[in-house]
């Protein structure tokens, strides 16, 4: 991965700022490591560590009730933790912006990640979430920019799935080294 490809979290951070996102909820993922650091360092953002991804759906709903925009960062396994609360997003037509780093998808080394990773798009779609994909580093910021416009402009729940090919972790050892 060259330096430019490695800088996608910076572009993503600028995109969230331009979209007027004020609250960021996250359960850490190796793929979101840099973006989480950028968000935590920004005192104009409220960056909330969650004990489970489901909490983020409530956070984002509350933020919107209070007039603020939120974004949620999670790994594909966390999508499964959100399912019932996505029903509330749909019933109330809350805007929702989820940035999901994929596991169990391209080059996965942990078999336990595969079932939820493979089911992630179908699960989201079953709950009425618009699923969009970013398959290359250069696509991520533009994809999230478009997703944010769709979410907040058209009151939709939108998930951008960031391909495991972009994250590029190939082994436990490599993940531990990050």
């Amino acid at each position, binding site marked *: 991965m060259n330096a430019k490809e490695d800088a996608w979290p910076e572009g993503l951070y600028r995109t969230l700022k331009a979209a007027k996102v*004020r*609250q960021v909820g996250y359960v850490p993922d190796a793929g979101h490591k840099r973006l989480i650091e950028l968000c935590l360092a920004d005192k104009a953002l*409220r960056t*909330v*560590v*969650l*004990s*489970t991804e*489901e*909490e*983020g*759906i*409530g*956070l*984002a*709903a*509350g*933020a*919107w*009730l*209070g*007039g*603020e925009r*939120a974004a949620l960062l999670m790994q594909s396994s966390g999508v499964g933790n959100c399912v*019932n*609360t996505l*029903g*509330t997003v749909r*019933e*109330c*037509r*809350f805007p929702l912006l989820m940035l999901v780093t994929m596991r169990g998808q391209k080059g996965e080394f942990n078999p336990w990640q595969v079932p939820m990773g493979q089911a992630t798009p179908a699960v989201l779609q079953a709950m009425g979430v618009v699923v969009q994909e970013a398959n290359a580093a250069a696509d991520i910021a533009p994809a999230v920019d478009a997703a944010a416009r769709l979410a*907040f402009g058209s009151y939709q729940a939108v998930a951008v799935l960031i391909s495991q090919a972009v994250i590029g972790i190939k082994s436990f050892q490599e993940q531990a080294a990050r």
Partner: protein
Amino acid sequence: MTARLNRRDVAKALLQERGDLLVVAGLGSTAWDVTAAGDSPLSFPLWGAMGSAAMIGLGLALAQPRRRVLVITGDGEMLMGLGSLATIGVQEPRNLAIVVVDNERYGETGMQRTHTAAGVDLAKVAKACGFRNAKLIRSRGQLSGLRRAIHQGAGPVFAQVKVVAEKIPLVLPPRDGGLLKTRFRKALLGEPADLD
């Protein structure tokens, strides 16, 4: 110790002269209690999302730091989102209060006993999670102090209020989620809410 407080009296006492207090009510009995105390566009009663009431309160409190936010929910609902107490404790929202109306039962499904009936102490959990003001409340005399803490106290505030396990008439709020969201935002944010 047998609980003596009645849940409707608790909600009424805490919500009297509520002013510009923002209220999130957990699904089931607490949504009916808040409605019985007087429906308001600044109440957001939940009909689903069990376990999410406290987190909705957190997002709202962070977005509206100059307003006070009260989450009023049941013991079963709070137990489903216990981790959110840790999340809120980390954020330390000064303007957020969470009141658990604890009848030690799942009231909508046949009054089955919850964990609190077996002694799980939610106030101690909240204290351990960083709520600076976390109390177990059993008597009517403590309610005015709790109401004061909700409106003025340094949060996050937590109270577990033991109430009688009773079946009482339903007092239902509107159930259209889109309507509840829109009326809340309009009452809080004014006309710009429709244009954002």
